[in-house]
């Protein structure tokens, strides 16, 4: 039930946004993310944006995955994911 889908805000009117989900556009409430603006990526749950997503941090996560899992593990303790910031 807590499914939430990322989309890009393409227009904002008052507290309502039009959000593009890979080509499908829907009206989304910004009541819970009052600072969200056009071109932001938001996580949408049941018609409400619940959080603004950070493209740079998504890129950072993918980079970490590549660094940590991109080389074979030789049994020694390799770079733990613990440097993902809490």
């Amino acid at each position: 039930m807590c499914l939430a889908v990322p989309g890009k805000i393409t227009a904002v009117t008052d507290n309502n946004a039009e959000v593009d989900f890979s080509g499908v556009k829907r009206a989304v409430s910004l009541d819970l993310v009052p600072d969200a603006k056009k071109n932001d990526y938001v996580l949408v749950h049941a018609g409400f944006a619940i959080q603004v997503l950070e493209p740079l941090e998504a890129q950072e996560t993918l980079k970490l995955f590549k660094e940590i899992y991109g080389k074979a593990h030789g049994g020694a303790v390799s770079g733990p994911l613990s440097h993902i910031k809490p």
Partner: protein
Amino acid sequence: MKTATPAERFSSPLWRDRALAASALSEIERLADVAAAKTGGQVNFMEVCGTHTMAIAASGMRRLFPKTLRMLSGPGCPVCVTSQGDIDRVLALAAVPGAIITTFGDMLKVKGSKGLDLNSMRERGADVRVVYSPLDAVALAAAEPARQVIFIGVGFETTAPVIGGAVARAKKAGLKNFSSTAFFKLVPPALELLLSDPENRIHGFMLPGHVSAIIGLEPYRFVAEKYRVPCVVTGFEPLDILAGIDMLLKQVVAGKPSVEDEYFRAVRAGGNPAARKLMEEVFSVCAASWRAIGTVDATGLEFSKAYAAFDAVKRFRIPYSDAPEPKGCLCGKILLGKALPPDCPLFGKTCTPSSAVGPCMVSSEGACAAWFKYGD
């Protein structure tokens, strides 16, 4: 790695890289044996989110896990944890003459204690409509001023602010014919319920990404500090889940439980303050009745005094009465991590998705439904 466009960074393929997943799995395999030596031969992690249950099952990764690692599905599916008594109240609301019941689709097939569900109420003439958003229900109330529109609000901290937001809009619009149930449950007290059980054997929690997007990390601190159990807030893509398990195992191996955030592209330490503020305005903490656990103080949300007029249960004076679980059904034990779906004598025999006995099979994201659809 080539630089992805912002849109690509949230799209699937990059998060499902086969080679990286294989490497993560070999790391999990290596660490699970080390961790199992510290936990008595078996490491049990629990996810407390139906979306995680589905993501794990659909990826097929469970059968690639080492034998020493077991992922349990905890009380993370809202439909599954809703008590039989509250389901009966939903059905009583559907019997209110002239009312329009609006709901998320997963509530349609959950049976009450008399064997009825919202689908069968519809066959008997009830006006039951599935909506995508509670805002659709508010819009319907505005369009149908002569009818009472009732939204069936169940869920955790992800859904509560969304329904709270819809109710706040209804109040602002002065709608007198809109109401909702508030059968909300809170995740951190649910974890405490599991941890305070003397039979508890959970060695780490994969924490729900979208609940945490709202509440942040702080509410979980007690799990690591008081109960010494590792926690990792985890995203929903296959690599997120593998990384989450890897991080949990590393905490177990190091003997240093903490609350880590693998899903930091969506989850900030402080969560979403605007959503929490709205949730606190519309709802207040109350005792909630959980399937298989019973009524427990301070584990749920009800309407606050300021919004009490929107409480459907009060408006239509629907009483609560305890009702027994379906006979032979192991949903309760499964929700507590004490049994796996195939342990249930009904699983796959009298209880299947097309003819479900318990809510873990009814809900599309229930542990039994996921197990039935995708196998182990």
